């Protein structure tokens, strides 16, 4: 019977088939992860893992090739080698900066180049423009494309359009991984977040990502938990592991460890890897490094000892 339905008919009823979310309980559960006590060697291992999962980001109108070079260097060598800290997972930049990042990092870099695309951050552009932008970013050497969904279409109930755009962008990504930004701050309800996650995963997302960082609230623990649960249910339904990237608003080492706890206890060990979990942040890295230094050396250093990205 489902096969007889046209695509749009299915999307008219998709809301009824996607699980609902209870706000009070999901917020309680998310808060419970922050009460885990992560100390000593677990803290150090966790912080290093956070560094290895970080998409070090600069998304400003005033970005220049020079600024991107700073960022790339910091991502490759976050801190002196004696702290035995891995490089970041990726740098995340605007499309115009992709070729500069690629040139700086070279082709064999452990640090990937991620580019926002599809009319970031609003997504209020024609599909043709979005596809062209994606094609160029991928062509310039981006390993990963962070696209935004059309929130206007989503909120007006045109889920078909949201899905079609993701599928179309996925197609032009080629070998590049696709992260789909839901911009949860604009979707507002957990039910919407859950539904948008489902649409994105079905349409071909490799990762789902909370936010652009340009809208408040950005990533929160409960929103991320709702998305992790969507990933879990999708995994059991299809056998496909989708990645997760909370982005925006994660500024402290303590917060980032709480996210790691949440991933560990929701999806298990497989997702504790940069292949399936990323943190998008611009200011988090130095706080994490400060905690690593403190854990290793036993005392805090001032911010002056940590290089700016």
């Amino acid at each position: 019977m489902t096969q007889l339905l046209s695509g749009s008919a299915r999307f008219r009823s998709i809301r009824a088939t996607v699980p609902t979310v209870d706000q009070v309980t999901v917020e309680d559960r998310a808060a419970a992860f922050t009460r885990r006590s992560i100390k000593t060697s677990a803290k150090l291992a966790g912080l290093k893992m956070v560094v290895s999962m970080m998409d070090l980001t600069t998304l400003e109108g005033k970005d220049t090739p020079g600024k991107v070079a700073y960022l790339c260097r910091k991502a490759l060598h976050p801190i002196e080698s004696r702290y035995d800290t891995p490089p970041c997972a990726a740098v995340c930049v605007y499309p115009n900066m992709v070729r500069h990042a690629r040139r700086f990092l070279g082709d064999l870099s452990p640090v990937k180049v991620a580019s926002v695309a599809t009319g970031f951050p609003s997504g209020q552009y024609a599909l043709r423009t979005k596809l062209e932008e994606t094609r160029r970013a991928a062509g310039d050497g981006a390993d990963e494309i962070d696209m935004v969904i059309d929130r206007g279409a989503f909120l007006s109930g045109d889920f078909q359009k949201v899905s079609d755009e993701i599928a179309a962008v996925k197609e032009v990504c080629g070998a590049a991984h696709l992260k789909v930004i839901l911009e949860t701050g604009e979707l507002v309800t957990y039910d919407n977040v859950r539904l948008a996650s489902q649409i994105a995963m079905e349409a071909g997302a490799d990762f789902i990502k909370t936010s652009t960082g340009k809208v408040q609230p950005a990533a929160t623990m409960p929103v991320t938990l709702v998305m992790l649960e969507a990933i879990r249910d999708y995994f059991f339904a299809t056998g496909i592991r989708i990645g997760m990237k909370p982005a925006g608003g994660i500024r402290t080492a303590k917060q980032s460890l709480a996210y790691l706890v949440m991933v560990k206890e929701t999806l298990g060990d497989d997702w504790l890897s940069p292949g399936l979990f990323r943190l998008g942040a611009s200011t988090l890295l130095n706080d994490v490094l400060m905690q690593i230094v403190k854990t290793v050396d036993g005392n805090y250093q001032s911010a002056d000892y940590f290089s700016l990205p």
Partner: protein
Amino acid sequence: MTMKSKATAKLKVRRAVAVLKPVAPAHVQPVIADRDRRLKFGDKWDYTPAPETVPVKIAPRYELFIDGKFTAPQAGKYFDSINPATEEKLCEIANGGAEDVDRAVKAARRAYETVWSKMPGRERGKYLFRVARLVQERARELAILETMDGGKPIKESRDFDMPTVAAHFFHHGGWADKLQYAFPGRTPRPLGVAGQIIPWNFPLLMAAWKIAPALACGNTVVLKPSKTTSITALHLAAIFQEAGLPDGVVNIVTGTAETGRAIYHHPDVNKIAFTGSTEVGKIIAQACAGTGKRLTLELGGKAANIILEDAPLNQAVEGIVSGIYFNQGHVCCAGSRLFVQEGVFGTVVRKLRDRIQTLRVGNPLDKNTDIGAINSSAQLEKIRELVQCGIDEGAEVEQSSCTLPAKGYWFRPTFLTNVTMSHRVAREEIFGPVLSVMSFRTPEEAIERANNTPYGLSAGVWTDKGSKIFKMVNQLRAGVVWANSYNKFDPASPFGGYKESGFGREGGVQGLAGYVNLS
């Protein structure tokens, strides 16, 4: 224009495929075969132990608290208090006899007649507020003591028990001078001396539930804590001393079942409030019948937690977990019978199986422990016996695969499937981290099954549809029904049972009614 329509046409073809068969990002992860779809909760990133430091002093010996002073029991007998997580002796506790109970009741009567019943409500309230603040100040110390004495995880004694203890004293402190507004048009008068017997699952919280309303209404108290968990009640006694509570207003007589018997048989006690097993509740009810003693009983339960197929399932699983594994399942209102609608039965069981793997069992003083020690070897024996009986009757056991400490009393978080309504594990209160899972087809059937028990303390309903909640809540014969949540408590909300789960309410205006005569 041509280009645009071409692009759209192409997309539609793509979509038609994508809708029916989700696109696999094949270059990232291969599709995992059905049988291999498992979450791995291993030790890729394990938490190191995070034990709470223990800045508390446990006296080698605790005496009775009678008439404002700590005094030795007349017979000079003591028993050991054991830390259930280590099986080590913590201290000795006085074993109060009938003569000690008599002394306590006399002190309570004197305090009632000379001071407490005559004191204006707002003055009584001041004492309760003072006690509440002192509990808050000492919350850490009390939480640690509670965890060492009873085995519950520090996470719970710190984040649930102690804040709720303080909340009960604050709440009832507020009522003390407003009793006339609680019962409009009627005049509330205190009852006299209240004898209160409390269980071991929430030692200090149960003491607060009993003492706070009694004092707010102008009664005096003789309280007996459970034999295995007396320490925090005696530290509360020290707080009463510090708060300057007049002598004899609260008396604490530790001891055994014999001590409790002396309290409910004492002729000069006006009211008995008991929380504990239905078995003992019946004995107390018989003893009090015809004596003129007022009685409230809060007894056992075998609560149904009902998951309808439209429920937010991921959250419902959290509700199941907090319903049965909170405080090792030593909760009278624990959701120990799970009813899942058939359409989502398999999904819920699978999610629950994954979820219990992430529960951390072990040292209760570790801040990351979710499930602590079983309170006593006797209780552990009872849990084992009932689970074995479930297996013998054909139930299938699902347990987390965690390792248990070598010493102490432990039981893995467990649930049983293949259970029917006539299994013992579906009828008797296990009072441990053991859940019996059953299915149903229609909401009517769920209600019928949920009500098919001699108990009636609590229930839970999980559905996304508000109208279903209201319909079911009205038909469930249980004192508390939680909708899309479980084990939530507030001093303003009355708590108590139907049928063999007891009578009378604790908390809120309804709870005050148990401690006043109205005229």
